[in-house]
């Protein structure tokens, strides 16, 4: 690796020991918007305030992608799912678990930042993902 990890899209999440998703909350109707937006899709109010979503959340639906979809350069299979976060929002994202049989509805999922592929400059391209919370 020649440089620090490159986010698949700037402004989507913040990496670190405790990664967060960068979202907005409408100051009029209170709904959460992800990715960040400059207007509310629910009530049309402008200038929603920034919020950070830290998780964990619960698994609501999940599957796996077994063949590379268009424009995708990473490995298959990989998991995709919907996680419901306590802030009152459901988020679609990759899952670190690519075997659907290993997952169950309602299980706790935490936020991670995971590598997708190495870009042409040799940098790791990373995105947000949800991982099962290890049962203690």
């Amino acid at each position, binding site marked *: 690796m020649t440089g620090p990890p490159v986010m*698949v*899209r700037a402004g*989507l999440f913040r990496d670190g020991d405790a990664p967060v998703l960068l*979202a907005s909350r409408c100051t009029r109707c209170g*709904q*959460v*918007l*992800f*990715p960040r937006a400059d207007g509310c*899709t*629910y009530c049309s109010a402008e200038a929603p305030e920034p919020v950070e979503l830290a998780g964990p959340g619960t698994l*609501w*639906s*999940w*599957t*796996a*992608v*077994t*063949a590379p*979809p*268009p*424009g*995708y*350069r*990473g490995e298959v299979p*990989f998991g*995709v*799912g*919907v996680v*419901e976060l306590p802030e*009152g*929002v*459901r*988020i*679609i*994202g*990759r899952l670190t678990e690519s075997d*659907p*049989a290993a997952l169950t*509805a309602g299980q706790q999922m935490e936020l991670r930042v995971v590598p*997708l*592929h190495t870009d042409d400059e040799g940098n790791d*391209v990373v*995105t947000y993902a949800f991982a099962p919370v290890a049962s203690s």
Partner: protein
Amino acid sequence: MSGGVAVAGVGMHPFGRFEGLSTTDMGVTAVRAALREAGVGKGGFQAAFCGTAYGGVATGHKVLSRMGLTGMPIVDVEAGCASGGAALMLAAGAIRAGQYDTVLVFGTEKMPKGIIRSSFFEPWQEEAGLAATPAFFALRAQRLLQTSGVTKDHLARVVVKNRRHGAANPDAMYQKETSVEEVLSSRVVSEPLHLFMLCSPNEGAAAVVLRRADLASSGPAGARAVAPAVTLAAAVLRSHIPGPVLSESTPLSGLPDDGVPSPSTLAATAAYEEAGLGPADLDLVECQDTDAARELQSCEELGLCEPGASGALVDSGATALGGRLPVNPSGGLLSKGEPLGASALGQVVELVRQLRGECGPRQVEGARVALAHTVGRGANAGVVILSR
């Protein structure tokens, strides 16, 4: 629908893969057939609406350039999987408004092979693997399996039913029956969806000539003189209300609320109201079955059964040919494949032929009222109701 609109003629180019034929070629075939049925030639219609998503600039003009132009308005309409339904709604509205007497509506498409690549997605979504259309279908299917009595076996039986219907449709891409075992042994694309449970994006065209109902019987002598007149009772397009995270609008986030009506339900409700009819009046349905679970979801959204009861509807045999309410007697998109801009009008062509009693071994006997439904990215949902 005030100021009735009649179907004066329909035409098809079969759905499939046609090496050497262009989007324009297929459109020309379908349009010529529809105009011939309607007894209409150059100058016989005052406007044209062309549904297409991948056809490119001026797709409609290119088709009509092959058959004599008059300077009429030609409008391409893109509404994803519901493009043809959107074109039909615009044409019907223009006739009802008194703008035109006769309008040509057609759809033509030549889809790239494989998973549909859509400019709808941003490049980063593709890079992150989040532009995988079958995965979104699968996430919806998983919810259906989790929250209702629907099983993978039901999904396989939807495929078997539609492929059996499609075996009797010469315009279908797949005209070979399959079995539950064969469906379930095809590879898993995205759990719970196996390869045979997904429709193929493909190529084809369909065309419909609409005419003011009070003029429909005064066409040229011999034009469809023996066929019963088919009326367009409703043609509705709706988009989505935000909230459902798995909506066809394909957002990345949504609300923890399962009570928001889907675009298909919005369109169906408006169409039933426009037609003055309800689900109990229907004799047959062509609905979006891009995957097997989608057909079941469509049945629920269109009010063909109670929410959560689509598995029981399959069990009852109602949706098979010979049943109480055959769904996708053409074989559906699972047999025909899906050329986006043409698929909705392909459904309309099938239903018009069914209502005229022209469908041979896949005929729904005595059919009088029929509904067509498409839904896809945007979101866009189209519902058309036809009657005789």
